[in-house]
């Protein structure tokens, strides 16, 4: 009797689930709790242009972030994005080490809120026993109070995809350009090239 009942229930559930995927209606618990639009903006808009719908703002398209918990959480949530894709999104990890301009910075759950500017270097993500290393060109890292870390970089490659011979060649080229540079602009560009390639070298060896 109870087996029949459970079978009927699962059939009803699967039927309901199938129907809900056809016509997407979110449950009330899934809807964002925070307001998805700026009411002051909408009101000001309606006064100026009542016939046109107000445009959307990025808040409407973003999932709201979790609030600051009262105790230190056990895991860190990491988002690592580059312009061409989101490498890591909402992954729970133990620690990340970011190459800030002031040196390698380790971020653990409960880290104080920080805005860090990044220099070319190795970003490593520690999850349990596995470590994933990426070489990032530069960017920013934000650590929020709710133990969510956002890392935005311009370019990132996994360290095992770097070609050592090209790194050496690049380093030699840019060192030579730096020595023969005349204008400030050329010097700055050559210096940047030398910095990046030395960091690549360090990433390969370290």
């Amino acid at each position, binding site marked *: 009797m109870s087996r029949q009942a459970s079978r009927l229930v699962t059939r009803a559930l699967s039927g309901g689930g199938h129907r809900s995927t056809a016509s997407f209606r979110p449950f009330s618990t899934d809807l964002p709790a925070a307001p998805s639009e*700026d009411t*002051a*903006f909408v009101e*000001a*808009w309606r006064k*100026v*242009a009542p016939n*046109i*719908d107000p*445009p*959307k*703002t*990025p*808040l409407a*398209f*973003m999932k709201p*972030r979790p609030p600051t918990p009262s105790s230190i959480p056990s895991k860190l949530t990491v*988002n690592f*994005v*580059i*312009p*061409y*894709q*989101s490498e890591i*999104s909402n992954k729970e990890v133990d620690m990340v080490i970011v190459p*800030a*301009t*002031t040196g390698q*910075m380790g971020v653990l759950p409960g880290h*104080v*809120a*920080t*805005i*860090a*500017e*990044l*220099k070319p270097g190795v970003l490593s993500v520690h999850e349990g026993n596995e470590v994933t290393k990426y070489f990032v060109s530069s*960017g*920013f890292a*934000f650590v*929020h*109070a709710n133990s*969510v870390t*956002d*890392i*935005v970089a*311009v370019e990132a490659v996994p360290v095992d995809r770097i070609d050592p011979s090209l790194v050496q060649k690049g380093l030699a080229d840019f060192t030579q350009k730096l020595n023969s540079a005349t204008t400030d602009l050329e010097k700055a560009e050559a210096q940047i090239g030398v910095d990046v390639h030395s960091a690549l070298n360090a990433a390969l060896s370290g």
Partner: protein
Amino acid sequence: MAMAALRREGRRLLLSPVSYNSPVAARSAILSDELGPMGARSVSTQAVRNRMKSVKNIQKITKAMKMVAASKLRAVQVRTENSRGIWQPFTALLGDNPSVDVKKNVIVAITSDKGLCGGINSTSVKVSKALYKLTSGPEKETKYVVLGEKGKVQLVRDSKNSIEMNITELQKNPLNYTQVSVLADDILKNMEYDALRIIYNKFQSVVSFLPTVSTILSPETVEKESEAGGKLGSLDFYEIEGGDTKAEVLQNLAEFQFSCVLFNAVLENACSELGARMSAMDSSSRNAGEMLDRLTLTYNRTRQASITTELIEIISGASALTG
């Protein structure tokens, strides 16, 4: 058998009094726009046939344009969805303040270079003009930076003096971050701003595009707003690592934010343009098809009417002789 004989007799009767006509085939004499034999008038089908040919060509062209837009859309859509993560960290950190009240506003309107893409450029321009009205006031100044030819053409008509920069041929090479960051650098160098507002059409689906405005504040405005409290009030709690001063880091942050948000906006607008072009060309080819159906009916009716007239003349002529 009898009908054939009647027809032959009728034609012989028809041809003899027609000797004053130019010696063209009887058929085309009937179908052209002049007096047929026995003085009977026939409607021309030539004009309708020409119209049908041109409508069919238009249908083929618009169908081809739709296919091209669909194939390009597939590629750009993938890149757009991948780039959606890049602006979220900035909004998570700095919040979203479209109603911020500043003196110098710059409106960056993103439009397309090519036409035949439905109404998306007009909606962007309408939203830009409304935003201009919203942000204008005493002691405030608002300027436009227009990306794309279509936006410039529409804005130049009444706001010619407010357009500072116009950038066209953005999509000559496939869109990439390097190109957009150079463009962002250009804009930041040439414009003084307290707040930048980027207007673009966000790609929801192939048939739905939402006009969206993203606001980016200059570092000084960020400082002012964080002191004033509100959404940016919690910015003070963040420790700054790197750089010499907080101002320098905030400056770099603002520039980086602008280039990232602009990259995403340009991709979304390109996607919306292709989607809008697809649906515009689709409805165009459907309209052309309907027009072709109507024209075909008219053509057949005209043709059958002229054949009937010819038959009536033949038969009445023959029956006048025999009966």
